């Protein structure tokens, strides 16, 4: 009840803030107006609390007759029935307020559900009740073999947590966050203040400019670490029969269930900063699950590459294969290098045009030339890390975008296979192979670019249904 009240208070108060502030601004800051606004806020809060109480009283749930029933709504009554067979997952989330009161939010998702909102959610249940509800819902699907509860597969240690943050490569995200924040800062503070700030802070020389960049980078890095710590503190992967459980989160605790039967593919991702240290993260593509179409869920955020196999054997043995990948033919290297250098060549042409128009000669565009070598090297890297293998009915595909990724999908999970051949590929007997697996609301792809065309055909053929 309290949680419902606090929630509605918070929501309506935040809606009240902007009109209140505008009102204050328009009337000036004399004590009378301030008192009026505060009084208004109090009235809104009391009303919201009362509404929260009403909606708490109106919300009831029960599990009966093979279905989950949820009744809610104060004015407009709403009753929802979800057959237990259709329940995809029962997750619990614990926000800061909910932690204060020692309760959890239970979210029930179905396969057909919308991407953003859970199909049914109970804002505040105490832990024991939530556990009972989960057992009731999952009990209908679970074979009563094991009763000793989930066994922990792996926990993320504190050292690994910080390491994961430090190597997450989300510095770019953090930098853009800082940019947005500084934009907001500009909007909020008056112009003269901003002017003064800029005057005192503006870089006076190259050294200070560099220093700023360095400080900004460091700050972004710390922000990335902070984000990881928030999300992944206490990350625990455990398994109970045919279900995997993931618990994580520092302030907001999340608990997610992944039925093993719904996992379509596993990706081992060795990020650019992680690969040198032999570290990797694990993701799963899971059907009708994840926040959005094609979004995969983190199965484990950071572990040594060497231990991936052991973890998969414990958690999802169907995906525990580590074959040698078949390399691409030599003639594919040219296409990889060409593809990676094309943007540089385009840039070169554009720079040539611009400098011709601006300065009357082309020489300046040659400044772009040194980029050609790293681009070609990147192409070679992508070529080297691309590969495929077929082991005991499982397709394994290696690829690199920035980090190196290895995707594993069993034959029976492939929704379709395709070969694509461009005119250029046809000339050198190469082709692209694509297999699709279900993921989230849509699909995800396992792709090998530029393998020998007969190998692609063989692959498409041998991954077909057995009759």
């Amino acid at each position, binding site marked *: 009840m309290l949680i419902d009240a606090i929630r509605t208070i918070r929501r309506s108060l935040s809606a009240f803030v902007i009109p209140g502030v505008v009102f204050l601004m328009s009337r000036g800051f004399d004590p009378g107006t301030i008192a009026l606004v505060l009084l208004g806020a109090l009235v809104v809060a009391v009303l919201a609390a009362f509404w929260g109480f009403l909606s708490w009283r109106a919300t009831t749930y029960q599990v009966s007759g093979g279905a989950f029933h949820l009744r809610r709504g104060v004015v407009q009554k709403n009753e929802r029935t979800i057959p237990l067979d259709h329940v995809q997952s029962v997750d619990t989330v614990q926000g800061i307020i909910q932690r204060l009161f020692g309760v959890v939010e239970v979210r029930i998702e179905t396969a057909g559900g919308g991407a953003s909102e859970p199909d049914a959610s109970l804002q505040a249940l105490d832990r024991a009740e939530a556990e009972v509800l989960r057992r009731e819902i999952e009990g209908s699907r679970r074979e009563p073999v094991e009763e000793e509860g989930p066994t922990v597969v792996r926990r993320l240690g504190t050292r690994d947590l910080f390491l994961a943050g430090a190597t997450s490569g989300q510095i770019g995200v953090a930098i853009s966050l800082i940019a947005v924040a500084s934009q907001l800062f500009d909007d909020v503070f008056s112009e003269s203040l901003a002017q003064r700030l800029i005057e005192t802070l503006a870089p006076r020389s190259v050294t200070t400019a560099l220093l700023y960049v360095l400080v900004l980078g460091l700050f972004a890095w710390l922000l990335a670490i902070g984000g990881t710590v928030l999300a992944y503190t206490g990350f625990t992967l455990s398994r109970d029969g045919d279900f995997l459980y993931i618990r994580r989160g520092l302030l907001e605790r999340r608990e997610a269930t992944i039925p093993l039967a719904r996992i379509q593919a596993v990706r081992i991702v060795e990020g650019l900063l992680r690969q040198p240290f032999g570290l990797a993260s694990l993701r799963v593509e899971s059907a009708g699950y994840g926040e959005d179409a094609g979004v995969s869920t983190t199965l484990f955020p950071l572990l040594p590459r060497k231990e991936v196999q052991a973890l998969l054997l414990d958690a999802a043995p169907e995906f525990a294969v580590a074959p040698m990948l078949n390399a691409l033919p030599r003639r594919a290297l040219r296409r990889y290098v060409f593809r990676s250098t094309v943007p540089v060549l385009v840039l070169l042409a554009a720079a040539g045009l611009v400098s011709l128009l601006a300065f009357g000669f082309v020489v300046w565009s040659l400044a772009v030339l040194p980029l050609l070598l790293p681009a070609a090297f990147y192409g070679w890297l992508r070529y080297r890390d691309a590969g495929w293998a077929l082991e005991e009915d499982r397709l394994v595909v290696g690829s690199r975008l920035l980090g190196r990724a290895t995707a594993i999908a069993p034959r029976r999970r492939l*929704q*379709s*296979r*395709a070969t*694509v051949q461009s*005119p250029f590929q046809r000339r050198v007997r190469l082709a692209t192979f694509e297999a699709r697996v279900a*993921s989230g609301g849509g699909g995800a792809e396992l792709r090998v670019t530029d393998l020998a065309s007969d190998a692609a055909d*063989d692959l498409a*053929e041998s991954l*077909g249904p057995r009759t």
Partner: protein
Amino acid sequence: MKSEPAGRLDPRAKTLWRVTGTLGALPLLAGGALVSWVLLRVAELPLLLAVLPFLAAAVWLVALASVLPGLRWRRWHYEIRDDEVDLQRGILWVTRTLVPLARIQHVDTQSGPLQRRFGLATVVFYTAAGANRIPELSAPVAAGARDRIAELTREQDEL
């Protein structure tokens, strides 16, 4: 891989594609004309240069109305086998797709107003990873293909 899938689309597809291609390219032609006009009048480029965008759009439209539908039709093959649906398409980029019947969740036939005028329909079948389609079959053939896919899918499920 198995030999090329045997089934072809209805020959009327070519005419339909000519019509839809022309209609679809008309806005592009108008845009090209506008750009050319701007280049000529506002930027005052020589006529030979300014006319290029319009010319490009016109060539594209002529291609869509003449040779491309034929090439596309010639490449499009499909076959509904006992265990898989086999599709081949694409003029330059040739794509061959195999969809196991056991993975198909449901199948539809769809036909837009223009398609109905030509007596054509599209078969769309859905897997958990998205939809695939066989376009422009004559309506009875499409209905037959739909029923056959549905039937075979059920058989596969029972196995």
